């Protein structure tokens, strides 16, 4: 079956700070037979402003991304982020309406049907062989789990890797990032990360894996500060390495 062409919207955080995640996501999708291009004129989904209550500003930024993604005909749009996918699929229409832009709201509704989170898209293909002999603590990011209901796909992909074992930990507890929450309430945000790290250390995990690089940046940043050196990886990176035969 021919795979659909995919436009990768890397999201602002991956694009600007974690290019390796974007490159890994693209490689995994290509390995599955998709033709991948990157949405270069897209900037950000607007979530930071939206969650801070600045919907007009969020809409202004999102409009640039909407314009870009809508111009790509009916190709599947893939994001390596559960929360940015949620922003587009769940909140964009409401945001554009609040900003008084009905045309954009309709466009967003049309677009949302072909926007997929990375693990969601990858899990639609047959599993590829790969190896990752690690005990993995999988972090369930909030919006992906609760708003999109993407629950089984990432764990199925991980369990499909030879030698990979998922450990039991506070997997669905919020890590405390929460966008601007992380800087508006840094003390609470860090305390929430600590609760997560305590649970991690109580498990015998060798690696933390997640589907939202923003959560992972926050968790990893906290772990480094605490001197906890377990690797923290986006699922795309884990799959890319495993499929390339580089997983250990």
């Amino acid at each position, binding site marked *: 079956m021919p795979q659909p062409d995919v436009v990768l919207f890397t999201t602002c955080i991956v694009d600007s700070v974690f290019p390796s995640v974007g490159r890994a996501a693209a490689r995994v999708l290509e390995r599955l037979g998709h033709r991948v291009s990157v949405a270069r004129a897209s900037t950000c989904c607007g979530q930071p402003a939206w969650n801070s209550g600045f919907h007009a500003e969020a809409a202004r930024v999102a409009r640039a991304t909407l314009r870009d993604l809508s111009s790509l005909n009916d190709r599947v749009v893939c994001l390596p982020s559960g929360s940015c996918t949620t922003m587009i699929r769940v909140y964009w229409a409401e945001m554009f309406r609040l900003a008084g832009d009905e045309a954009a709201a309709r466009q967003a509704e049309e677009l949302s049907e072909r926007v997929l989170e990375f693990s969601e898209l990858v899990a639609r293909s047959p599993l590829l062989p790969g190896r990752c002999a690690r005990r993995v603590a999988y972090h369930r990011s909030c919006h992906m789990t609760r*708003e999109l209901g993407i629950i089984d796909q990432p764990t199925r992909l991980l369990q499909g890797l030879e030698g990979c074992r998922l450990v039991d930990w506070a997997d669905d507890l919020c890590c405390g990032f929460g966008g601007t929450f992380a800087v508006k309430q840094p003390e609470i945000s860090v305390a929430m990360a600590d609760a997560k790290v305590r649970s991690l250390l109580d498990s015998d995990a060798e690696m933390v894996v997640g589907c939202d690089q923003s959560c992972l940046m926050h968790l990893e940043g906290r772990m480094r500060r605490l001197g906890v050196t377990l690797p923290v990886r986006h699922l795309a990176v884990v799959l890319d390495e495993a499929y390339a035969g580089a997983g250990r």
Partner: protein
Amino acid sequence: MTGDSLRARARPAVTDAGLNATVGAATRHLTTERIKAFEELANGEELRVSARSVRERTLARLPELLGLLADRVEAAGGKVFFASDGAEACRYVIEVARRRGAHLIAKSKSMVSEEIGLTPALERAGLEVVETDLGEWIVQLAGQPPSHVVAPAMHLNRRDIAGIFARHGAEGIGDEPTVLTAHARRELRRVFLSADVGISGCNFAVAETGTVCLVTNEGNGRLVTSVPPVHLAIMGMERVVGTWAELDLLVSLLARSATGQALSAYTTMVTGPRRPGEVDGPEEFHLVVLDGGRSAALGGAYREALHCIRCGACLNICPVYRQIGGHAYGSVYGGPIGAVVSPLLCGDEFRDLRLASSLCGACYQVCPVMIPLQDLLLQERRDAAGKAGRAERWLWRLWARAWGSSRVYRLSARVARWGARLLPGRWVPRWGAGRDLPHDPARWGRREKGRPGGA
């Protein structure tokens, strides 16, 4: 930046390891019990949907139902007082107590009474007030407000409680829970038997019969409402339900959501005062129905917050509440629901509680009446945005202008990347105090700028 007062209250809370352990253990326990209680039900999700529609229907006919409730309470021999605000409610209660020449008031748990500061008002009027719910009594002795809508002393462990009792005349009794509760029972028995007035809350009031329903686990509610010669119940006006069938649904969801019980140990129904020929019950029964910001909220964007039945499940699951406990909210109502209702019911000074959430959405999932708490918190943030400080508004405006253009975005992304690489993490305000900055050695290749995976 806004939210600094919340920050100031949260700072000592997050570093208090004892508080963290106590609140963490209690909230995790209650959450586990709640999950078990819902697993027992074949149709837990359906019941939530039904409960939500019951609350919607009830609020849609609130004036009518309150009218019916008042008629039925009066028909049963009780008196009803509609208080437009807390001060009015307190004045009414004081008048009733004075008319009866009361000295001692026994109180069972009531969050509305906390909301309006009833106890301090009564004390200022020269009355002695004793809380008879164990948790409430403990925090009253400690001189603290309750820290949780269901478990007022959740933030205290048994050693803390033994210490509080010791400071109030019970030294050397140790910290065995059975001994501590026996002490409380002895002390409170005296209060039940000698109180001139009993004040209770009201979990629900059934309009069709004029019945006040109290959900407790200690039996103190039953004593407070039946032993003293006067019983005064106080309720928020949204607490009404139309029928006993609706009460049945809501009470069972309340108990399961709050403590994981199918029903609490005592579910007390009070309809009016003692009738001729009955051997016990109060001579007088008063129902105080408080507006206190509720009717204003009814017509606004936060209407659904009035669906709340105060089970505390959203507090228990909330990762923020678990870290900071109830007192850091600064309001009698903490947790996600507290962040939404406090500005509505307790004043504008609680508007910064909109920031006490990572918007993780766990609260909505456990709410028995499906209040979309994260949406309401977002709404609060939108409301506040217009009044935000000039710096924050300009920052977002600037950001929107920059990232609304992919060219400027690209430039700023490069700056961010180099910033993260070059800046020592600790220098970054608000982020760097607790977290390092990310470092990703990879970069988009020139060839990959159009097609990164295609190398």
